[in-house]
């Protein structure tokens, strides 16, 4: 019997799924090794049976469950709980699932405020909010806030090889090791300490580098004064190679979430800057340093001050 696999997406963008497809031909091996029983992007299994005759939002049992996306409304929560119930091993795939991801940026506002803004934005012909929309939760949750998660595989998107390796290891019941270190681990840029670091600048000009030289000849972007979230962000995006953003010569924005489980990218980054004597208040819009990890109650609507 091949192990069965469920793959659900919740408050997600499908980037995680595409990343998995970017695994390439090894994907075909995976198709061989597991039996995919539920995967809305690729196959036609429906909740509650093909004709809707079963219990609503029911899912098949599976050995491995992958969930991408966070939890934003009641239906996500129900699907997630069903996944947890049906899957022996549950993988939180992608930063939305592990830390809320970009959609959790909306946790800085109440759901009502967000709905109001969205449905009055732009060229809407009349101001109404939909009545039969799914019941939104008060905020966007990562899935580990709602159910027990066995494996957290962050990334926006997670690196295909890593997704593959984890699934393979689970299929073969092998041990596996997720990256423990930050983006800096595989970043080959020249680092000399932050003493000479320029004041933080917005990314309005390109980094300083010689186009004919490899990334390993470029000065650390943070040391160049560009806020690079590498040091506070979980690594692995480039596999063993240069982190992807650095390949594009742009600073990391933290898409793998905090390097430290339970870490706070905003606080860690500000602390790193302040500790090195850099005016952290020069940074425009600190909160967006939590743009990938606003779940776990980190991003909240501003406190009302009396």
């Amino acid at each position, binding site marked *: 019997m091949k192990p069965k696999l469920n793959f659900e997406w919740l408050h997600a963008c499908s980037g995680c799924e595409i990343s998995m497809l970017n695994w390439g031909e090894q994907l075909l091996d995976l198709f061989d090794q597991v039996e995919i029983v539920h995967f809305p992007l690729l196959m036609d299994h429906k909740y509650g049976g093909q004709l809707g005759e079963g219990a609503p939002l029911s899912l098949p049992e599976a050995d491995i469950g992958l969930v991408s996306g966070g939890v934003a409304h009641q239906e996500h929560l129900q699907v997630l709980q069903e996944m947890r119930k049906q899957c022996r091993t549950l993988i939180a795939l992608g930063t939305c699932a592990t830390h809320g991801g970009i959609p959790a940026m909306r946790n800085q506002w109440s759901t009502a405020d967000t709905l109001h803004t969205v449905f009055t934005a732009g060229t809407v012909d009349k101001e109404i909010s939909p009545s039969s929309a799914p019941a939104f939760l008060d905020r966007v949750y990562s899935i580990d806030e709602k159910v027990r998660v066995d494996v957290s595989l962050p990334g926006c998107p997670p690196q295909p090889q890593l997704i593959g390796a984890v699934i393979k290891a689970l299929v073969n019941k092998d041990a596996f090791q997720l990256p423990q270190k*930050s983006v*800096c681990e595989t970043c080959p840029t020249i*680092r000399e300490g932050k003493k000479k670091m320029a004041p933080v600048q917005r990314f309005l000009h390109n980094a300083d580098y010689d186009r004919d030289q490899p990334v390993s000849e470029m000065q650390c972007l943070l040391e160049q004064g560009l806020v690079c979230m590498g*040091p506070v962000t979980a690594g692995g995006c480039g596999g063993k190679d240069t982190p992807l953003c650095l390949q594009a010569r742009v600073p990391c924005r933290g898409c793998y979430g905090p390097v430290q489980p339970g*870490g706070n990218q905003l606080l860690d980054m500000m602390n790193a800057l302040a500790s090195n004597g850099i005016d952290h208040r020069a940074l425009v819009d600190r909160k967006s340093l939590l743009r990938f990890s606003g779940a776990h109650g980190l991003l909240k609507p501003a406190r009302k001050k009396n």
Partner: protein
Amino acid sequence: MSDNTMSGAVMVVGGGISGMQAALDLADLGFLVYLVEKTGAIGGAMPQYNKVFPTNDCSMCIIAPKLVECGRHPNITIMTLSQVVDISGQAGDFTIRVRKYPRYVDTSKCIACGQCSAQCPKSVDDSFNSNIAKRKAIYIKYPQAVPLKYQIDPEACLRINQPGACGVCAEICPPGAINFDDQEHDHELRVGAVVMALGFQTFDPSKAKVWGHGIYPNVITSLQFERYLSPNGPTDGILTRPSDGEPVKKIAFLQCIGSRDKNRCNNEYCSSVCCMYAIKEAVMAKEVNPELEVSIFHMDMRTSGKEFDRYYERARSEYGVKFIRSRIHGVEPKGTKGDLRLHYISPQGKQIEEIVDLVVLSVGLETPDSMVKLAETIGIHMTPDRFASISAFMPVHTSRKGIFTCGAFNGPRDIPQSVIGGSAAAASVSSLLASARNTMTKTTPPSIELDVRLQEPRIGVFVCHCGTNIAGVIDVEELTAYAKTLPQVVHVARNLFTCAQDTQDLIVQQIRDNGLNRIVVAACTPRTHEPLFRKTLKSAGINEYLFEMANIRNQNAWVHNQEPETATRKAKDLVKMAVVKVATQTALKPLRIPITPSALIIGGGVAGMTAALNLAKQEFHIHLVEKTSQLGGNALHLFQTWNGEHVPRFLKELSEEVLNNPNIEVFYNSTVVEVAGHVGNFNTTIKTGTNRKQTIEHGATIITTGAKRYIPEEFEYGKIPKVVASIEFDKLHMHNETRVANGKSFVFIQCVGSRNKERPYCSKSCCTHSIQSAIKLKKEVPSRQIYILYREIRTYGQRERIYNQARELGIIFINYELHGPPKISREDTGVLVEVWDHVLHRPLEIKADMVILAAATLASPEAVELANMFKLPLNADGFFQEAHAKLRPMDFNVDGIFVAGLAHYPKPLEESISQALAAAAKAGRLLARKEIALEPNTALVDPERCDGCGLCIDVCPYLTIHLVTYQDDDGSVKKSVTINQALCKGCGICQGTCPKRGITISGFTYNQIEAQIDAALCTELTPEASL
């Protein structure tokens, strides 16, 4: 005398800062030290001060670690309430009789709980608080006192004065430490040398009635003012008028009370410190209340020390302290409300009356009569000013060989000079007794330690009752029962006094019986008791670091004594916090690094040679690097010291002694080009005269690179040949060159290049120098007209005598201001000097045959490069910046490197020699250890987490963190940081920076602290999310 008769013990008499420094240095240099203190606790004068100048550090805060260090040092025996009665014998072999007066409290029993004092019915004036507050008859001198043991004042105690009376302290003392039958005892001790750090007392202004001290309540001394300002003083730092408790609005400081005064007292000398402390007190008062009007009435502001002039200037310009050059001769009452009236003559010559509501008398320093008598008894010479008589060339040697002296007993001086003196005395003792080093000191044998790495934690918790101190508030039984429920706790016991010696044996037994491998003691504070319990762990064969204290007394029972239930709950938390912390504690071993027993001394001037010779006599090897082809440095230009000692002769003898010492290797024409290594093991490369590079291994470094003189650009220097700098003048004078020989009128101009905008510091020795030259000129030909144009005459200390002498000889002193400097022009064959006369209030023209410019001393330009190589800081004026202006005046924050002489700041020869000896003491203290045992609570890099992001590199204050690149198993290149353990002090700034817990401080790891937080908040880690 053969070496084996030398004693390896030293007696230091006086437990003030100078004596403490001497004791600590000597103890670390390998000598057993008896520290004899006449009061009940060491510390001397410093604990009484609120802040210290010019750093404005809290005085108590900076001295407290030294107190504790003295108290804990295994080779320092503190003898309190003790006085030297007699010294016999000779250098290397003295016998000293010490009289120990009764304390009436058994120090081995007293736990300093303070219940006795609280109950004592008798209050008397508290001299520690300068009699502005009361203390009890049973008391501690001050809360941080070392030893922290109560004492009974026999004059005040009801019981001692009347047997059968009172005795309440004995009744309530929990450990029963009171002994009314205590007696005085004489002890005979054999020592090889003695250091006299007898200290000073402040002048008592009430003797002369003119200032109204003791008559008008609102006239107080500067020391009383310190106590008023001190937050831990009797008024909690709140300043009000003593007469009525009303807020103070206007203060006048009167300088030179009991100093520079031959009329009202016999203190001719300048007390050296009063100008600065008055400014400091003024600034402190202004800081609390900027509205306050503060005036300082003075003759000269003698702020000649490092950073002092800046401090003075800030007080004036930033704080608005008024400085009035006028001596006030009396204080009168104004009305009946306590106001005070002062009369003075303004600089413009006007009579002015000022009404103030507080007068602070800046009282001078003097040697107490008892100390003068002691000096007589033991036969050491004193100066007419009643200070120990010393030579500028041997600034810590008394007239009796083997007896050394330091601190204010050598003449009035500030804290850094006293610290330097203490160290200098230690260095001098050490070279005298080098052969007896380590013959008397104790070493603890290494113990065999249980390896607990693979064991599960088995935690033992010992709960202390501390008599009723803890048990009277906290339900210790409930606490004990609770401790038993904590994870990994296998043994819990209660003790009446956990620190008692018999309890230590009990704990050792229980550790063995129960196979405990980690210990928590819930008692008082680790700051005082951790060393004791660590020792206990050691003797039980457990690594001493597998230990944690729960502070349930000082930080619980005592501070919540009205809330027993809450305090008990808190005690549970504290014990739990300690348990979870100790559970993940790992055994730590101090890293031991062997030390290369040699020193590199850079600069072959007097400071460098002095340090070299002292260390060589201490039997260390010395590499002395001199950039020129000659030893002697700036002293080659000097003729005499302030008290007339002949410098060239001294210099010749010193150089010869250096060159003849087999332990000293001199490199001429050499400079340092590269520096590597760290304390204990430096590798310094020098380039020698032949352009050859040579690498020297050494354990310590002393920088004595001197200074250079200012080439004046003002006063037509270099344009008019009769305008010369003072050093040039000395040469001309020595050879009686015609310009000098025929000269009838001489003008000295002071502060040339000093104390201006560009160099806002005082070159310190020029006033004395010019006056000496002037006196010599005058004495040679009394008809000569000699003028000294000055801004402030800074003949500090006993130098005041020559200032007086000069005036008596008819030398004319004319004050000028920075904004109105004298004008110089050529006139006929001479020089015309125009200056504003402040006494006559009119311009004055002087026809001079010679004008002598007292040119500034400048930092050596090479200092910059040297500072870069050794990673040392320079101050704004380019002089080396010591680690701490007060207590570490020759150290750097980089261990193993010291500074002395002009490289540190301009100073006279005597002070350079002192500092050089002090630097030698520090270097010797390091080299004598043979190896450095580094504090094991240092930063550790977790290779599983560190990825070399580099955020921590520049946050480290000790520059110990470096990036490294390595290849991991699969060949990919990785980055990480490494810590130079030898330099790490374990402050944890790196831990506070790292976003990934890649670097932790053992003993205070992130995880341990987090566990403590969780334990404190009693959160069980139950994931709410699980289904």
